[in-house]
């Protein structure tokens, strides 16, 4: 497994790439409202990425047709934006986007409750977000990859939520997906030892019901098998000698 350690200059480029992506997510968050289509919110994201002088890295990635994955309710990830899919009051919507800045990729996802969503939906969103923060307590030099995975999985399971196993987080840098795989549940092996300079996209995908998922016929959209809601939260993180730096949150 070849996990890249970024140089100082590469880290600066990653910081910039991620900071710009944070702006994109802020624009999408402000624009999201009931009545718009999943295509509309995707276009907010795509236009913002291009306005910032960057390239959307999801578009045409392995054939994905759009800049933003828009996944609604029981859609886990990789929802393809559509002019026919209207976002309704009470829906939960996951927006997953990335961009390339001077050859360096960033990747982040957020799930939002649109309008008057149920308390259960809001709780799922918040717990999924917290799963990420539980995981990154171990995103430090000297810890092992499985420490992050175990923390995420145990936290989600403590609420009887299902942790998606077939998809995972990943290294990121000059490619969108690099080594290592970062599962969201405990593995049998401890995994690589984390070192300063690693840049990782950590992304819990949590279902309100069972962990089982179905891959759709469109070749991309993943949904929960039991029809329960699913939430997704992701940031690109830099491993340092001290606390991890969350690059895609604009402080």
């Amino acid at each position, binding site marked *: 497994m070849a996990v890249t350690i970024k140089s100082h200059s590469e880290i600066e480029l990653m910081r910039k790439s991620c900071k710009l992506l944070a702006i994109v997510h802020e624009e999408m968050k402000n624009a999201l409202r009931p009545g718009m289509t999943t295509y509309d919110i995707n276009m907010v994201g795509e236009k913002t990425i291009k306005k910032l002088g960057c390239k959307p890295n999801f578009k045409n990635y392995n054939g994905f047709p759009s800049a933003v994955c828009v996944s609604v309710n029981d859609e886990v990830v990789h929802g393809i934006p559509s002019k026919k899919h209207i976002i309704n009051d009470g829906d939960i919507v996951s927006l997953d986007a990335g961009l390339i800045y001077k050859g360096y990729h960033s990747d982040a996802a957020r799930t939002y409750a649109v309008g008057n969503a149920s308390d259960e939906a809001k709780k799922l969103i918040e717990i999924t977000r917290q799963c990420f923060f539980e995981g990154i307590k171990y995103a430090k030099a000297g810890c092992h990859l499985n420490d992050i995975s175990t923390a995420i999985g145990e936290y989600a399971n403590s609420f009887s939520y299902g942790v998606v196993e077939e*998809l*995972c987080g*990943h290294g990121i840098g000059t490619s969108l997906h690099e080594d290592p*795989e970062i*599962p969201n549940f405990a593995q*049998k092996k401890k995994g690589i030892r984390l070192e300063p300079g690693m840049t990782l996209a950590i992304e819990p995908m949590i279902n309100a019901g069972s962990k089982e998922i179905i*891959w759709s016929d469109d070749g991309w959209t993943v949904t929960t098998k039991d029809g329960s809601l699913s939430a*997704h939260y*992701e940031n690109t993180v830099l491993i340092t000698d001290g606390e991890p730096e969350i690059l895609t949150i604009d402080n």
Partner: protein
Amino acid sequence: MAACRIGEFAKSKAGHDKEQVFVIINIENEYVYLVDGKSRKLESPKKKKLKHIQVINKIDDNLLNKIQSGNNITNEEVKRAIKLYVKNGI
């Protein structure tokens, strides 16, 4: 964007092996390496672009755990897992 994991089933979407079921044993950027235990053994996996496959399901937990933990699997185990999937759709 979430990444697929090594050890999952995939179906070929293009090429002379279209519709054939494989197990993913490696992923490198836009490429996956596929085996079926007979025409494509572990010693000589098929290299394919990710966009030319569709991930269809996870395989049985024991085999999946072995692959994802980096433990050795055999061509027989791969063949058996694919046969079971094709027969039962698990």
